[in-house]
């Protein structure tokens, strides 16, 4: 059997998700052996052109160069996976989207005219190309990456996390920081998959895995935290640290 051709690409981001693949020390050799790797910037300078079976794309689209690169990857790939929160939800570089214009920000921060860089407003890749599957996280969880890859190798579509952090929090029997301490936990509206790492340390979830898109109730989360005395500005800022560009129907109520 010929090995599937795998490409791992970066747009604008910290490359932490590619690094997570290199961090999979126990599985790395097995992983590399299963694929023909055509592109993996962080792992090797070797690059090949031609079609790709599975493309992992990390980073957000923040420049014209990113956008050209992304479109070219999409054309070459059968399956395209948004990899990490920059690619899935825009992450930190998108947290001020919609507040001021990009031109204004370029002027305020860098003191340059809008055309000085080839910058675009940072967006998750779903804004420009069809995304077949998303692996969120800042950075991604190794376990989820391995599960997605084995599903694909097996010919199945990978299973994402459709439920919130609270589920894992309860399965681990971590005390709920909202119930116990009135902390502004975003766990009820944020995708599981981290094994409720922060509540496990007594901390509130700040949403590094992005929103649960379907079935969560952000309006209720907002109201609950407002009732506890947190301001809307504080809650929205927190939510947007890792998810600058929220899915359109997320901010609504009960679904």
């Amino acid at each position, binding site marked *: 059997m010929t090995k599937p051709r795998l490409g791992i690409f970066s747009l604008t981001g910290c490359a932490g998700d590619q690094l997570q693949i290199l961090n999979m020390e126990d599985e790395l050799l097995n992983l590399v052996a299963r694929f023909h790797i055509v592109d993996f910037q962080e792992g090797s300078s070797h690059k090949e052109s031609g079609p790709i079976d599975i493309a992992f794309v990390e980073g957000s689209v923040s420049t014209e160069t990113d956008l050209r690169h992304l479109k070219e990857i999409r054309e070459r790939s059968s399956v395209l996976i948004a990899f990490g929160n920059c690619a899935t939800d825009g992450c930190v570089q998108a947290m001020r989207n919609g507040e001021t214009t990009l031109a204004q920000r370029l002027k305020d921060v860098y003191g340059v005219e809008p055309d000085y860089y080839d910058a675009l407003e940072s967006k998750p890749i779903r804004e420009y190309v069809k995304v077949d599957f998303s692996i969120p996280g800042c950075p991604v969880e190794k376990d989820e990456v391995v599960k997605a890859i084995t599903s694909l190798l097996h010919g199945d579509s990978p299973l994402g996390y*459709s439920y919130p952090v609270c589920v894992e929090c309860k399965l681990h029997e971590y005390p709920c920081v909202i119930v116990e301490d009135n902390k502004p936990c975003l766990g009820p509206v944020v995708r599981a998959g981290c094994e409720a790492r922060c509540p496990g340390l007594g901390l509130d979830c700040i949403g590094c895995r992005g929103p649960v898109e379907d079935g969560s109730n952000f309006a209720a989360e907002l109201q609950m935290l407002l009732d506890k005395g947190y301001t809307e500005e504080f809650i929205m800022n927190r939510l947007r640290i890792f998810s600058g560009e929220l899915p359109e129907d997320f901010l609504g109520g009960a679904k």
Partner: protein
Amino acid sequence: MLINILEKENLVEFFEAMQSYGEVVAPVRATDNAHRFQPVKGIDELDLDYTRTMIPPKKYFIQPKETLFTFNKEKEKYLEPPSIDKSMVLLGVHACDINAMNLLARVFMEELPDKYYLERRKNSVIVGVSCTPDEKCFCKSTGTDYAQEGFELFLHDIGDKYLVRVGSLKGHNIVKDHSELFAAPEKGDLDAFKEAEKTRLSSFTIEIEMSGLQDHLDMSYDDPLWAEYAEKCLGCGSCNLVCPRCRCYDVQDYINLDMNTGERVRMWYSCMLKDHGLVAGGHNFRPTSMERLRNRINCKGSLREEMPNCVGCGRCTVFCPADIDFVEILQKVRGDIK
């Protein structure tokens, strides 16, 4: 009914005797609101005078998340995890949780025998302990505040002694093998038990009427109250995951990168989560949170062999991050409050 008396000053010896039946797990204070069942090595670690744990003791029979077996495609075989036949003593279980496990036992030991549940229950000793209800307990309403079966021994606090009821042959043998720890009850002990029960029963502060509740729920199917509560509900699933009576789970197979070995994993699941109602073809028979909430309350308020699917432990109310009050919903359904 076999009754014995255990002096509290013999509790250390009793605890040590229990250790000979397996690892002792007992309630330990975890937070202001909750205790946690966990392994204990000495009597000073546990707290028998507790109200509720967040996660019920059923976690020892059907674990929150567990590997059911690993498999090897090449050799066409599967292996079960090694921990399934471990002996265990659950010390300090409340009547509501015992009654909840009695229903689980029917499901997992009789209707659809589950070897994991069966094996673990067979290898365990359950020791109940009496309790004092707090302002969220309503097990008296659900008729689950007293355990008649489903335990080996049940300790009733009657001051400086425990009145110990024997609930099984295994329990009888425990008493027989440690007869030096127990004494026959005297008239005063029985009177003390009756007094303690009176005090306990008069301590409940909330109640719901169970009579005809199922019909009341049916008649409230189109009531606007479901949408009102759904607006507040986060859809987080906590209410199911802390419930001693809930028994929904999800099963997934994972293969390893060698494409040859893998595991089957089971984890607790919740009907408040959207994909609980998702079936093949993409159809979801409870697509809105209103329908999910209504379904959950209907499930809880319905009877199974004369027992409601709720044992009145109060956990779902106490641990709901959105402060949704389960009893308040049922009182509205009945028209007791507006």
